[in-house]
C-alpha cells in the first residue's frame, strides 16, 4: 500500500518502539508520542493520516484526546485506532463511543498490523466518499 503518515501514541517506550518498527518496515512515515500533550503538538505540526492511540496514558488519557480531536474541524478527519491492552468486555464500546474509528488489542500481531491499518484507512475513505456524495446530493437539491 501507499505509505501514509502514522502517529503512534504509547507511554510504554518498548511498545512504542515495536509498533513503530513494524510499521516503518512496511514503509510508513512514523511519528511518536509518549503522552497526549506531545501528541497534540505533533498533530499540529505534522498532520498524520492515522493515529494509533494507546488508551491508558499519564495525564490526559487516549479517549479524552480522541474526543478532542474528533470535536475539532481541523482534526476530525484523522483516522483514530485505539491500541490497547484493555481487553475486558465493554472497552471496545468505550473506544467507539469516544469516536475511535477502530480498535486493536494488544498483544499486536506484527504480521497483520499493516493490513489492519490499511483496512481502517480504506473504510474511512469509503465512509467519507459516501458522506461527500450525500452532501453533494443535498446541495443539488
Amino acid at each position, binding site marked *: 500500500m501507499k505509505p501514509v503518515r502514522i502517529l503512534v501514541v504509547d507511554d510504554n517506550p518498548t511498545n512504542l518502539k515495536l509498533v513503530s518498527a513494524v510499521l516503518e518496515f512496511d514503509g510508513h512515515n512514523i511519528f511518536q508520542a509518549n503522552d497526549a500533550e506531545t501528541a497534540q503538538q505533533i498533530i499540529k505540526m505534522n498532520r498524520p493520516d492515522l493515529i494509533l492511540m494507546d488508551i491508558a496514558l499519564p495525564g490526559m488519557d487516549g479517549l479524552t484526546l480522541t474526543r478532542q480531536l474528533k470535536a475539532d474541524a481541523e482534526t476530525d478527519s484523522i483516522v483514530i485506532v485505539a491500541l490497547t*491492552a*484493555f481487553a475486558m468486555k465493554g472497552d471496545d464500546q468505550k473506544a467507539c463511543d469516544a469516536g475511535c474509528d477502530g480498535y486493536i488489542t494488544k*498483544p499486536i500481531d*506484527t504480521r497483520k498490523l499493516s493490513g489492519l491499518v490499511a483496512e481502517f484507512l480504506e473504510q474511512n475513505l469509503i465512509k467519507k466518499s459516501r458522506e461527500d456524495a450525500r452532501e453533494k446530493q443535498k446541495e443539488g437539491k
Partner: protein
Amino acid sequence: MISPLEILKARILIVDDQETNVSLLEDMLSSAGYVSVESTMNPHEVCELHRKNRYSLILLDLQMPGMDGFQVLEGLKAIEAEGYPPVLVQTAQPNHKVRALKAGAKDFISKPFDLVEVLLRVRNMIEVRLLHQDAVIRTEQAEVRSEQSESANLAKSQFLANMSHELRTPLNAIIGFAEFLGDGKPGPLNPKQKEYLGDILNSGKHLLQLINDVLDLSKVEAGKMKLNLESFTLVQAVEEVCAVAKPMAQKKSIRVTVRIPSEINLVTLDQQKFKQILYNLISNGIKFTDDGGEVEISAAPIERDQFKLSVRDTGIGIQQEDIKRLFREFEQLEAGTARRYEGTGLGLALTRKLVELHGGVIGVESEVGKGSTFSVILPFTTGEKTT
C-alpha cells in the same frame, strides 16, 4: 436454641396499679426461678423504662387510671417498630383479650391468675422474644457478610482487569519483537537464531493463553460471564473451528473428520463460547493423540431439545480414577510423564464452566491406550441466563 437458663435470666417488667397483683405475680415468677423481675405501678413510665432496659417480657395490666394498657401498648409498639413488642396483657374481661391481641399484644393471662397458665405463657413468650432477637441478629450478620463478599467480588474483578492490562503490556513487546525478528524483517537470521526466537514466541503465546484462561475462569466464578446468544449453523461453526485447529493436526499427520447429520441445523448458543468449548476439546484431542492418529467430531440429537456433540480421539486415554480430577483447575494428568504435553491445565475446567453456563453437561469415556471421547450435551436453544 434458647436455654432454660437464658429464659430465667430474661428481664421482666410487671405493670399494674394494684400492689397486691404486682406482688402476687412477683411471687409466682420468683418461685419459678426468674431472677430479673421489676415492676412499676405508674403506666406513664413504662415506655421510658422499656426504651432503657428492653425487657424480654412486659406483663401489662389493661385497666389502670390515667393511662390504660391500650395506650401503653401503642407506645411500646412505636419503640419496637420493626421488632417484636413482648407484651403479655393481664385482664379479667374476656372481650379485652381479642381487642388487646388485635392492638398488638402477643398473648394474655386471665385474672384471677392460674399459676400454671401464667408460668407457661410467660415462658413461651420469653422464648419467642429471644428467638426473634436471635433471628434479627443473624439476619443482620448475614447482610453484612453478603455486602462484604459483594465488595470483595468487585475488588477481585477490578484487580483482574488491572492485572490483565499489566500482564499484557510486557507480553505485547515479547511476542511482537520475537515475531518481528523471527520473520527476519530487521535482518537475516541463521537457523538456530530463528529456532530460539520461535521458542520465545511460543512461550509468550502460551503465557498469554494462560492469562486469558485465568481471566475467563475468574469471570465465570465472579458471575461476570454473560452469554451473547445468537442463532447459527452448527456445521459451519464446527468447520470453522476445525480450520483453526488444522495446522496443529497436520503437523502430527492426524486426520480430523466431521460427521454431523443434516437434521441438526440451527442452534441458539453463545457462538464464540461454543467455539471455545469445541476448540478446547479438539485441540486436546490432537494434543494427546500420537502422530498418524485420528480425531472425529460427531453430533446427534437427544430427545427433542438437546444434542450431543462428541470429540473422539485415538490418543493415550485416561485412567478411570483420573477422570473425576479432569475438569478441575490446574489438573493436567500424568504428572509423572514430566508434563510431556504442554498446556495450562485450565482448559477443561474452563470448558466445563462454559458448558454449564449454557445449561449443558460435559462428560468423558476413555480407555487407556485406545483413546478418549469427550461429549457435551447442550440445548438447541439456550435461555437467557447469567451465572
